[in-house]
């Protein structure tokens, strides 16, 4: 299934330029010309569109592109995928697969690429799009009865809800193939949360489905909840999110006098950044993995640096959380590790916006009013 004619590396650069200028028709033409030149549709999707979109993410993280430009480029790529899909219509000779983004997950393009690759491989695909609520997905499964669900999760903060969805899919007898960076670069969270299989990329996912999933998912290794959730720290943090964030913002204001002079909008941006930290911390507690949080913090440090925000503000935020979460020993351990990683990451050679880090479609904004994209 790999390309007859490979996609030339220069095409990716040219494509990136076009989508960066929002030139929909030219980008579509470029993709279709590659098809006409003998490249396979799968190669156009995975060796042209996918790498260009990864670069789009990096360009935003490095503050080279604005949010608007990033979204506009992604919208153009959506059109390109649609045009390629319309050009190539393989017969569906295999079973039926439902492809969906986890609830709250808005990075639909990588998932759309997976859906199209599966279609090209002969599966009948139902693509439910971004942020699919659990009940909607389950109703669909009862209605359609697919052979498997391919569930995508790009942001680890959606893992708790993805877990609920995985459990629900499996309890109605449909096995789940998990994918997307949210499940960890090595898929460790997919295994932890009971997915039947995991794949790092769209073509790997297609290969995995070729090998077949169980007709009926076997029972999860544990019943109910993972053991580490017994300490209730995740539940308490989520339940008291507003209160905790209020306390953290207060502590930050007391410790950093400039915060008190922020405008309402600057305070709001800071509150949003703190909320992101809280959500990643909650996700790290849910899967009991400090690395999830430290990677996010290191990545945020890079993003902030690119926007001229001093790293001290991030460290102050982490410290404020530690102070606020006195009764959360597990969370405090994670915060301490993150603070250490943060100190290391703000060294002069720290990379900015490396590809593997978790990221939000939205700026993780500044912790101080230096201004972020948008």
């Amino acid at each position, binding site marked *: 299934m790999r390309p007859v004619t490979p996609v030339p590396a220069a095409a990716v650069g040219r494509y990136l330029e076009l989508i960066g200028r929002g030139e929909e028709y030219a980008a579509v033409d470029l993709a279709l010309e590659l098809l006409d030149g003998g490249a396979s549709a799968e190669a156009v999707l995975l060796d042209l569109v996918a790498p260009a979109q990864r670069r789009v993410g990096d360009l935003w993280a490095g503050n080279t592109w604005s949010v608007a*430009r990033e*979204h506009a480029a992604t*919208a153009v790529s959506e059109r390109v995928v649609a045009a390629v899909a319309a050009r190539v219509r393989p017969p569906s000779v295999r079973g039926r697969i439902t492809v969906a983004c986890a609830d709250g997950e808005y990075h639909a393009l990588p998932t759309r690429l997976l859906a199209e690759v599966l279609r090209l491989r002969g599966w009948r695909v139902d693509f439910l799009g971004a942020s699919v609520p659990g009940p*909607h997905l389950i*109703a669909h499964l009862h209605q359609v*009865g697919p052979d498997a669900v391919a569930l995508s999760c790009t942001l680890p903060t959606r893992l708790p809800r993805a877990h609920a969805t995985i459990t629900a899919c499996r309890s109605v*007898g449909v096995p789940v193939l998990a994918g997307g960076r949210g499940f960890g670069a090595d898929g460790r969270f997919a295994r932890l949360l009971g997915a039947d299989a995991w794949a790092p990329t769209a073509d790997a996912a297609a290969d995995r489905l070729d090998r*077949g999933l169980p007709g009926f998912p076997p029972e999860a290794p544990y019943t109910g909840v993972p053991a580490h959730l017994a300490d209730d720290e995740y539940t308490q943090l989520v339940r008291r999110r507003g209160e905790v964030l209020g306390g953290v913002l207060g502590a930050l204001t007391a410790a950093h006098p400039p915060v008190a002079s922020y405008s309402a909008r600057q305070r709001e941006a800071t509150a*949003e950044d703190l909320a992101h930290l809280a959500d990643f911390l909650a996700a790290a507690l849910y899967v009991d993995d400090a690395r999830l949080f430290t990677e996010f913090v290191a990545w945020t440090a890079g993003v902030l640096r690119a926007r001229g925000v001093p790293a001290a503000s991030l460290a102050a935020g982490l410290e404020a959380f530690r102070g606020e979460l006195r009764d959360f020993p597990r969370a405090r351990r994670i915060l301490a590790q993150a603070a250490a990683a943060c100190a290391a990451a703000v060294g002069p050679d720290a990379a900015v916006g490396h590809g593997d880090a978790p990221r939000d479609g939205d700026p993780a904004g500044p912790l101080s009013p230096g201004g972020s994209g948008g």
Partner: protein
Amino acid sequence: MARHGRFGMPEGCARGGPALPAAARPPAGWSAGPSAEVPPAAPRSPGPLPGERRATEFLLEAGRRLSASLNTRRCARATAELAASFLADAALVVLPPDETRRSAWLRVTAGRPGLQEGAVSVAEAARVPGLAEALAGFPPVPSRWLDPAQAPGWLLPPGFGPAGHLLVTPLPGNGVAAGALVLARRRGGPAFHDGIETLVRLFAARAGAAISAAALHQEQNAVNAVLTAALLPPDLPSIDGVELGGSLRVAHQAARVGGDFYDVCLPAADDPPAACGQVPAPLAVLGDVCGKGAQAAVLAGQIRQSLRALLLVERRPARLASLINRSLLACPAPDSYATMVMAELHRTGGGRLRLDLAVAGHPTPLVLRADGTVDEPPGHGTLLGLLPDAEPALCAVDLAPGELCLLYSDGVTEAFGGPTGREMYGEQRLKDALATCAGMPAEAVVQRLEQLGTEWLAGGGHDDRALLAIRARPR
């Protein structure tokens, strides 16, 4: 003979001899009890009986898997897989004929991965002795042995080899025929015996109940899907010089319908002229009906339908609003109120777009200028369905190429969440968010605003939320 008498099976049916294989393998991964513990029930049985414990485990596993799905095909697949894992070398489930008089079948071979599927006509199915009766579901018929020589080719997997024993068992449904189960054993394989037959009967009853419940569910679902299809947001048309993007998130997630709605109606060639004698223009509408869920969705659907009908004779937004108001006042259902905004789309040359807006008790649309400023045209107008003389607020908005007008429902701005979890999103945040969208295509704007709104909710519940962006296509 007693063994067949017990199941009401005519003696003549037992052509395969007393030979269902007994050495049924425990399904992979089960903790199979040692079969030696269980003495054979009938001394005549040539092979060892499966342990009672294994039979119990089989039925437990069957219960777990069969109760999981409300999908007919998934239930049929589970039935075939379970049967092939424990009862036979190959198992085929034949479903009752559909409206085209064809029966779908699903087949699983023990020890081979994958599922085979196909369909046969009623006539072909009838060539298998006993199958038509089993598929009819009523009157109830017993299991029936088949002479392997009578089996048509589609019954057995390719490369299966000659069958020694074939058993056709009806799947008794809950008042609805659920299909039939055909079990096949290879020639020369171990024999069937009493215990297995009892197990087959118990299993068939469970599988039949599951399949017929699923069939009933799917039938109701199909009706539901037809009824709600008109209530789902429409695919947006493509209009020269215009970009459209729409999004609807409803409060009732499984139902997918609610009281918010939007629509874009294109004029037909012979439609009446618009205001000022111009050529008929496309009309975009976004509205919000009082209430939530199915009841609100029905009224929203009626308003959309009324509008489409009214557009055949009337195009002036103000007049349309007044007519919808009268029809809502006449509506017998209580609380038939709605707010809405209508926008007539006129291309005015140079890639510019003029929107003639009529706002009836609805949040005023927001206008995103090329430089990122956000304007709000004046006027709210009055709610429809409450007073006899509803007056929409009228205004016109000019869009330069790349500029955009956002229609939205109050569910967007009245979402509670944020860092504290108790704060309302509010109009100002929506304006601020929209201001960051200058230069984005309409679809991307809607996606971004929807995403920001969902993040604001942070997992909390919400009202219906609708967004419709109309953008003058950049040159």
